[in-house]
């Protein structure tokens, strides 16, 4: 069975760009699910098989940090890996994301090669 990815970003444009970058990087997923914030992401994780999450940090309703914190408290989904894709690069916020379980981060703007370089080894 193939792999599924969940893209979490309040920008529908950015979700499309990330999806296109995955294809351009030669990373094929059977399903690309999309969520506009952490709350939507949690609902999808509870109802779909997702192998990895690519998540923004600055989002309305529930941001990426709150999403990681809430996900860590839910036994059924807490081990699903998360990679942050964000304009945020500061050690404080990226460090907090990593302390909550994020595997790493990709800075926006990004190229398909950069996505492949960071995401590829995690799959």
């Amino acid at each position, binding site marked *: 069975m193939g792999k599924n990815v969940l893209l979490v970003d309040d920008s529908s444009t950015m979700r499309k760009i990330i999806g296109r970058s995955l294809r351009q990087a030669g990373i094929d997923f059977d399903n690309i699910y999309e969520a506009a914030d952490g709350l939507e992401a949690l609902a999808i994780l509870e109802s779909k098989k997702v192998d990895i999450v690519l998540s923004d940090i600055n989002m309305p309703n529930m941001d990426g940090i709150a999403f990681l914190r809430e996900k860590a408290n839910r036994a059924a989904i807490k081990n699903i890996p998360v990679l942050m894709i*964000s304009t*945020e690069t500061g050690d404080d916020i990226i460090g907090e994301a990593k302390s909550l379980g994020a595997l790493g981060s990709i800075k926006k*703007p990004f190229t398909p090669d950069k996505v492949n370089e960071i995401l590829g080894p995690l799959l």
Partner: protein
Amino acid sequence: MAVEFDVASEILKAAQDVFLTMLMVELESEDAIYNKQADINANLTSMIGLGGGIRGVLAIHCPANVAKAITGNFLGMEIEELNDDVKDAIGEIANMVAGNLKVVYATINVNIELAIPTSVVGESFNVCGAAKAQRVIVPLLMAGKRFWIELMYVVH
């Protein structure tokens, strides 16, 4: 605290990086405008609030044809009107330009916090900053078509 670099130059570099990386488009620029009104002919403005060490707004002002061209390039599709895709795309461009500026300011120990972008479609409106805010407007050219990035800020 004095800002120790050329803000207009950093805005230009931040925008060029975003456009070259995400759209594979080279940007040219014209002379920056400091602390005065400019003749901005825009149909869409996307703004992102800045907090922390720099308080203010970064705004991208686009005529309709430029906003549609940027979005069409971004999404790889023909764009016919200033729809939600355009508002979202230009907002995300503003977000990434502000993100690049945040990285530069961090090198001089100024921490900037970014809000979530907002886009406005319309004409004949001005964006105003706080009293005594510094104002820098950088005119940019994408394939000869002009748009503007404006930073209004107060150093906190």
